Structure formats: structure tokens, C-alpha cells
């Protein structure tokens, strides 16, 4: 689903995670000029590929620099995702394997270190072509003089589905031994078997950049997961069963997990409540071993979870707030022997603190079972894919609240008062998370049909921010009021600011005595305005023996 685009090639990345991901020695190929590459061609890992055996006469014709076929601005943002004039075209031959792709020999080799680097690539595929993309690295050890620079050093598939018919900005983490130089990149446009194809298609590649930033240059979705959101678990030996969250020693708040999906988006139904300064402990009931727990909170509500780790602990503002294992340490900075964090069927994440200065409001919270990876979307290392490892991601909302919340009522032709003291609500603050009784008081000549209850945060803003519901709007009918015209707002609805609109309409005082009418044909019956009726009406309000009835 499209959410938002940002300008390509902005000096700073959308969602940049700061100093620990500072861009160093970036290499860029934009195909506007010949800068960055020495030659272009095609490559196929399949040893019997006709592109390797010579059966295809002119492999070089399958790539070429061409005009950018899609520079149209996005309808919502009026920004073109890729406004480049020239791009690289590659013809996806149905006679190549699933790893057939465009080969780009680099003008400057990528000198790898022990750190993971990131290949950013923009890819455009025709409508209907949604298969994964892959980046293959060809290179050699710099200390082995006689080794071929065409040795395959990594294969990195894209994570998740590729949007067809528009430019995608993809990021591929790459890691090798520190002695390796990458001499060529192969962009595989269609990581699927072509055996059922009857024709080829052309894919487009542009703006290749190699740097140290793991985030895409364009934000196309908020809170992404690095696999199909409908992905079913592939392992039966590892499974997240449930999660419990304890806030400052209070009764644990539990989260039930849908075990038929790797990704559980429960933001519509599950809310974790905590106050600034409170300590939060996440425990995950997990069947299996060798997995670790990770907790994230999107403190700045920008739709991303940005880890900021220094000296093996989350720094101020880090949205990875707790983990049991990351590069040999947990989030307390304590050395961990390995990522096997399951103890007696439970992964216990180190407690983290809700910062004291956290504004009251709604925050996306993500709980993840994964192995040694700070990417909130899940490990995309081909050898440790979250899905393959039996991981799981659960999203809920975190309600950071005060002890008391504002309550107010605004309406014409009546008032909604505190039932306890008949006082106006406007200046009141009431306890968070506790039921509260209000009373409808119509003006003379008016009656009430109910109230509209708006409760949550940012009540004057959009109801959803990046998919996170900020508030609810509930219509409470008059029938929900008691005989004293009172309504008890349930505790669950006192979950932030409470704003009431009384619904008053002209008419007699509302009927609030509703009793089943006995069958009394011999008793005089009157209408509500005093007219004698021949008999009880089949429906409506009537008075009999001094009592009001509704049938």
C-alpha cells in the first residue's frame, strides 16, 4: 500500500538513524553518465545457462542505457519517485535462470570490511511482475592474486513483495569477509523460475548506491516487515505462543498471538498502558530455542523503528528499546554467549524505561522474536531469515498516559454533567482507566437521544497516524442511560482525553422508565400528551395507571 514518497537523492536519508549509520565512502551509479561503472552485461549463476554456454548469440544486447520510462510524479505527493533522465534497462530473458540479471562492473571496487554494507537500488518492473529482486556480488580476496574477480561473494534477495508498475527503492545488506573486494554487482530483476513464461519483459534499474545506511531512501510504507505480511509460519519446532508485558510491577498485560501468521498486527485491539518513567518488562512465551527477543517503540511517531545502539546499549532516543541478544550483548550491555535467549520456554527482554519526558499519547510498539538483528522488519540475512528461523513480529499500541485525563462536554440545548456532583465537566480531570459516571440534563423542552463519546489522543487531528489509531468515537444511545439519566463511561474508554457531545433534540423529557407493559385492556390508556386512547398502542409510548410504558 502506498503511504508516502520522499525525494530521491536527498542529502540526508529519510529515516536516517544518525551517527551509527553515517554514510561513509558511498559509491553511486546513476546512469546519467558513465561514472561509477566500467562495463555492463548480463550474468547468470546457472552453469548451463545459454547465456554462459554461448547458445545465446549476443548476451550484451540484453542490457542498455535508456530513457527513464516513468518520471511521472506520484499523485499524492506530486514528487516523481525517480526523475532521472537515463536508467539501465535489462531484458529478463525467459531462457535465463531465476538468477539471470544485469551485470555492472564497478569502476571502483567495493572494499569490504567486517561491517555490513548496503546496496541501494531503484527497480521498476512492468505491471504484474512482483517477484523478488536479488543482488549478487562478484569479487575476490584481495590477497589472492590469482583468484577470479567473478567469484560469487554473496546473494542477497530483496525482502518482501516488489510493487509492480512503479519505481521501488530497495536496500540489500551485504556482508563478506574483510579480505574481500567486490568488483561487480548483478541485479537480478526476477528471482523466480521463468519456465511458464512465453515472452520476456524489460526491467529498469537506476540509482545504485553502496553505503552504510540500512534504510531505504524512499519511505513507501510505515512499519514495514521484511516478508509477506500474510506469511504463514514455516516451522513447527519454533513458535511464539504469547507475550506478557509488566509495567512497573503491576499486573501483567497479556497479548495473545495468532500462530497462523508470522506477523501479528494487533494495533486495533491491543493497547499496552504505561506512564512516563515506568519500567516495562516484556516476556515472550516461546517454543523452541536459539532465538532472541526485541522490543521497539516509535517514539517520534514517524512510522519507523530506528535503532540507535552505541557501546552495545540503546542510546537516548533509540527506538530499539530492549533486546536479549545483539552482536554478543543484551540491551543492558551484558555479554551474552549466544542468541539462544529461551530459558524454560520464555524469552525475557531486559526491562526498559519509558522516558520521563515522553509526551502522553499513542505509540506503535513492536515485539519481535528474531536472531541477532536490530532491523525491526526482521532479519534479512539469507542464512538467518526471520521466517526461516521461526521468528515472529507482533505490533500493538502503547498508551503513554498521565494519572488523570481531561474530560469535557460541549453541546447545545442541554448539558452533560458529572453525575457525582452535577458539576460541569469542562475543568475536570478524571482518573485514567477508571469508569466515570456522567448525567444528561436536557434544557427545558428538550430531550436527549444519547451522547457522542470521543476518547484518546489528538482528538482534533486525524484519527489514524501511520496506521495507529489515536482515538475512538463512540455513539452512546439514550437507551444506555439509567433511569436517572446517567451513563457510566467504561474504564476502557477513559484511555486519554474524553470529549463528550450531548445529543439534545426538541421534545418532552426523555422516557427513561421502560417497563414491559402488562396486558390490561380494561384500564384507561393515555398518550404521552394526555389524550385518552381507545386501547394500548401496538407500539410507542403510553401511560397507564400513572406509569409510562414503551412497547
Amino acid at each position, binding site marked *: 500500500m502506498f503511504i508516502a514518497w520522499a525525494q530521491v537523492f536527498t542529502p540526508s536519508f529519510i529515516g536516517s538513524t544518525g551517527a551509527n549509520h553515517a554514510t561513509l565512502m558511498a559509491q553511486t551509479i546513476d546512469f546519467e553518465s*558513465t561514472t561509477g*561503472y*566500467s*562495463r*555492463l*552485461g548480463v550474468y547468470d549463476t*546457472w*552453469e*548451463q545457462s*545459454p547465456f554462459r554456454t554461448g547458445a545465446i548469440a*549476443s*548476451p*550484451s*544486447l540484453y*542490457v*542498455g*542505457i*535508456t*530513457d527513464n520510462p516513468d518520471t511521472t510524479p506520484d499523485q499524492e505527493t506530486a514528487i516523481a519517485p525517480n526523475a532521472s533522465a*537515463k536508467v539501465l*534497462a535489462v*531484458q529478463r530473458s525467459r*531462457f535465463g*535462470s*531465476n*538468477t539471470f540479471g544485469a551485470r555492472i562492473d564497478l569502476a571502483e571496487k567495493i572494499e569490504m570490511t*567486517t561491517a555490513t554494507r548496503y546496496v541501494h537500488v531503484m527497480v521498476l518492473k512492468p505491471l504484474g511482475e512482483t517477484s*523478488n529482486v*536479488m543482488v549478487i556480488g562478484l569479487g575476490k580476496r584481495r*590477497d*589472492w592474486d590469482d583468484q*577470479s574477480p567473478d*567469484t560469487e*561473494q*554473496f*546473494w542477497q*534477495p530483496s525482502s518482501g513483495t516488489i510493487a509492480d508498475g512503479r519505481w521501488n527503492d530497495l536496500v540489500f545488506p551485504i*556482508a*563478506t*569477509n*574483510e*579480505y*574481500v573486494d567486490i568488483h561487480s554487482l548483478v541485479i537480478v530483476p526476477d*528471482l*523466480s*523460475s*521463468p*519456465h511458464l513464461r512465453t515472452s*520476456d519483459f*524489460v526491467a529498469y534499474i537506476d540509482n545504485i548506491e553502496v553505503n552504510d545506511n540500512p534504510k531505504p531512501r524512499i519511505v513507501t510504507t510505515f512499519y514495514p516487515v521484511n516478508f509477506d505480511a500474510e506469511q504463514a509460519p*514455516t516451522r513447527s519446532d519454533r513458535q511464539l505462543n504469547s507475550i506478557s508485558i509488566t509495567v512497573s510491577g503491576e499486573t501483567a498485560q497479556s497479548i495473545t498471538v495468532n500462530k497462523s501468521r508470522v506477523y501479528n498486527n494487533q494495533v486495533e485491539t491491543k493497547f499496552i498502558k504505561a506512564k512516563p518513567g515506568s519500567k516495562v518488562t516484556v516476556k515472550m512465551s516461546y517454543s523452541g530455542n536459539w532465538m532472541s527477543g526485541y522490543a521497539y517503540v516509535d517514539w517520534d511517531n514517524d512510522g519507523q523503528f530506528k535503532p540507535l545502539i552505541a557501546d552495545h546499549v540503546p542510546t537516548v532516543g533509540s527506538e530499539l528499546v530492549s533486546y536479549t541478544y545483539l*552482536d*554478543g550483548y543484551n540491551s543492558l550491555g551484558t555479554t551474552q*554467549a*549466544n542468541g*539462544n535467549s529461551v530459558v524454560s520456554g520464555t524469552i525475557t527482554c531486559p526491562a526498559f524505561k519509558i522516558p520521563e519526558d515522553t509526551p502522553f499519547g499513542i505509540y506503535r510498539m513492536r515485539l519481535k522474536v528474531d536472531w*541477532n538483528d536490530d532491523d525491526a522488519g526482521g532479519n534479512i*540475512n539469507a*542464512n538467518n531469515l526471520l521466517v*526461516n528461523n521461526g521468528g515472529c513480529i507482533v505490533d500493538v499500541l502503547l498508551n503513554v498516559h498521565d494519572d488523570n485525563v481531561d474530560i469535557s462536554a460541549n453541546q447545545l440545548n442541554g448539558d452533560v454533567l458529572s453525575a457525582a456532583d452535577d458539576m460541569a465537566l469542562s475543568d475536570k480531570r478524571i482518573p485514567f482507566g477508571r469508569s466515570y459516571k456522567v448525567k444528561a440534563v436536557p434544557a427545558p423542552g428538550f430531550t436527549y437521544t444519547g451522547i457522542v463519546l470521543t476518547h484518546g489522543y489528538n482528538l482534533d487531528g486525524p484519527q489514524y497516524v501511520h496506521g495507529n489509531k489515536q482515538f475512538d468515537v463512540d455513539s452512546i444511545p439514550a437507551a444506555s442511560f439509567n433511569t436517572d439519566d446517567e451513563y457510566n463511561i467504561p474504564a476502557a474508554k477513559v484511555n486519554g482525553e474524553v470529549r463528550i457531545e450531548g445529543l439534545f433534540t426538541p421534545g418532552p423529557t426523555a422516557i427513561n422508565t421502560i417497563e414491559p407493559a402488562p396486558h390490561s385492556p380494561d384500564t384507561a390508556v393515555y398518550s404521552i400528551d394526555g389524550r385518552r386512547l381507545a386501547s394500548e398502542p401496538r407500539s410507542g409510548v403510553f401511560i397507564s395507571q400513572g406509569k409510562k410504558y414503551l412497547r
Partner: protein
Amino acid sequence: MKHLQTYLLVACLACATSLKAQSQFEPVTETYSYADNEPAPVHPVPSHRQLLWQETEFYAFFHFGMNTFTNSEWGNGGEAESKFAPTKVPNPRQWLETVKAAGMKGGIAVVKHHDGFCLWPTATTTHSVVNAGNDNGRNTNIPEAFAAAARELDMKYGFYVSPWDLNSQYWGDGTSNYVNKVFLPQCIELAKYGSDQFEMWFDGATGGDHAGYYGGANTTRTIANAATYYDIPNLRQKVHEIAPNCVIWGVGDEARWIGNEAGWAGETNWAMGSGESGNINGWKWKAGESDAKATNMGWFWHSGESPKSANELFKIYLETVGRNATLILNFPPDKSGELPAADVTVLKQLGKLINDRLGTDKAKTATHVEASATRSAGSTRNYEVANLTDDEKDTYWATDDNTLSATITLEWEEQQSLYYVMLMEYIKLGQRVKNFTIETSIDGSTWTKRAASSTTTIGYKRIVPLSGSTSNYSAVKAKYLRITVNDAKGCPTLHTLSVF
């Protein structure tokens, strides 16, 4: 507009106007036809070495080393070399002869376990047989003797060399010294013991809380990423340079661990992905290997151990080899450097059991074999159903491209007692079948489904017990047998159908 010529040379682009960039890319209309009307491959497909490896099917694991003499499974690397003191010069020929009797086609010998003690005279460390505790130990060179014996017995061979090395001062020290000075040279040394090796086995253990000697540091160490730390891509390339058909197992990414050490694979088992069942959508060929212990104690020999029964091992065979996995079955040599007598006995029994139950192919005696669909022949090869029973691994039955389901029916002159159906896909063109059905009939009109819940994938080899159980050896009476491929990723390509 002109197409760019053989690799778009930047230098030419800069100076030659005829090679300027195209305004619009013009797709090539060149066509390519597969010879002899062969079906297009369903990718991924195995490499040549992966095909050869898969054909090994059933082979032995021999855990022998320092642990044999210290009664442990994992040492700590600080064991004195003198503790390695076999009572006889180890005899790999006896190991291989014995497992060959069970029908195994090869073996993998452990030549260095996590304790780092090398069973060959390596230039990389003194922690080896060179400093063993007696002459038998000092005269030990397992890679050399094992390779020689395998060649004499026409068997395949390979070596287990533990990447994790609790003895080395360099392992996990934050530098590349271990890989550059110890591990890569060791693997190259081992590769040079035979260019005809079929598999090099890399255990996935990576330190953790198991304390090690580490050159006297006596600490715990770990590494974050085995593939990059051990520089697997370049290790793989270097080993292939010396031993082109040597599959690098595990972290080497050419064959996968099946996901358990209990000796079973999933009934649904794709040669892509991970774990017991693989992944139909996996992009890379990485067939499963099941490692299992044939004895009741550890991977290494321990006093008092005994082998599992032949029936138990046959069940493991059916649930691994018979489910599109290879089986590497562990028989640990004892302190004499030979397999114990009890192991020898049970291996002979297992060989007899396999031969008795899977040795006589009744498909070859069927009076009539018919397929509902057959692919059009090419100029030099056909895809007839007879290819299923001709014992030729390079012939196969196939349907036309758009025919994804078909039936094959066998008829015998007399009613038969049938136990197993064995199917093999022509995996050179990829693993295809997603679902199939086996039915039997007495009269040719009333059919009964057999093992209905388990007939999903086939792969390299699938053995289906018609009783539905790998534990029970019970027959189904039938005069007719019908196999229906219900669904496949591409037209089905089967090269063998056997009935036992």
C-alpha cells in the same frame, strides 16, 4: 537506435558517437529452443556437483578423534596430544567395507572436531597426530587412508573438519588470523587429499558458552557470522578448484541440514529452503541431508554403547532417503580405530533388510505400463513411460508443457503383494511435483488410495510405504497400481518408478 556491442565499454561510450545511449531500449527478439523438445528447467536446479552428491543417497559418518579417548563429545581443546593413543593403527578400510555391506555408497570421516586435534600431519598446528601418544597414533593419517580405501572400494568419501577450533589461539580473537593461518590452509590441505571428494562437512557450532583452551586463554568466545568469518564463498571456490565435485555442506550453502538429528525428513520436502520440509519458493537448490546416530550414545564411541536394530535403521532410511534427503548415518570407531563387532553385525543385517525389501523391482515385471499423457519426442530422445523402468538416470518420462497432471498405470498378470512405491524426479530440470496419489486395484475398476496423507513432494527419491507406515512391513494385494501426478510446478519429469 543501435544496440550496444558486447559489453558496453565506458571508454568507447565516451568517444564514439555510434555507441551513445539509446533513447528507448529495444528488446531482443532472439529465440532459443531446448534441444530434443526437452522441457524448460524449473528453477532452481542443482549444479552438476549437487546432482552427483544427491546420487550418493546413503553414506556413513565416522566420528573418531581425541574424544574417542577422553570419553567426551566436545573437548575443550586443551587435551594433551598424547591422549590420542589408538590400540591399533586406525583402519578406515574396515569402516568403509562394513558400511558398504549395508548398501552405503560412501562416508565422511571426522578429521578435526571442535577440540582442534587434527588426524593428519598438518602444517597449521602441532595439535595433531604428529604428537600422538603412541606409534599407532603417530602413524595415523585418516584423510590419506580414508581416501585410499574409498577409491579401492569404489566408494565416495569426504571429510568433516570443524570450523570451530577450541585449541587455536586465534579462533574468535577478533581478527582473521584463524581463518587465514589455520582454517583455510587446513581445508586446502584436506582438499588435496583427493580431487574426487564428494562432500566437505562444516559443523555449525560457533562457540558460545562452552569454555575453550584457545591457546591457553581458557575462556569462552563466539563469532557473529560464520559465513563471513570463515570466508565461505572463497573457501568454497578454493576447494572446488581442487575438488570440483566436492559439495560444501551446511554453511557452505550447497546442501542443507535437515533440521533434526533424529533421522527423519518431512514427507513434504523441497530441495530448496531450510528444515525438514524445505520451501517450495526457495530460490536456491539446497537439498537436505539427515545426520543421525546409529548407536545409542554419542556421536563418538563410548564404552557400553550399542547400535540400534536393523529395523530401526531401516525406518530411518525410509524416512530420509525415502523422503528426498540423503542419510549420513554415524558409526563411531572405537579406541582400536575400527568399528565394533556389534556395529558390523547390524550393518550386515541392515544391508540384507534393504536388499530384501527394496531389491526386487516389480515395476519391471508389469505386463502393461501406460501413461495418460506423454511428451512429444525430440529428434534424439523420447519421453515414453518405458523410460521409467530402464535403469537409465538420464532418460525420463514427461508430459507436454501445459500438462501438469497425468496418470501412470501398471498392470501385472497376477495379483501381487506390494509394499513400497519408489518415484524419482529428473531433478536436473528442477523439483516439480507438488502433489500425487497412489492407488491400487484388484480388478482395474475399483481403486483404493494408499498413504494418501503423505503423497505431496517427490524430489530426487521418494519411497512410499503402501501401508502408510514406515514402521510396519505389511503388503497390499493388487493387480493394478496407478500413480497420479495431481499438481506440479511444471510438466512432471520422472526418471524412475519402482514397485517393491
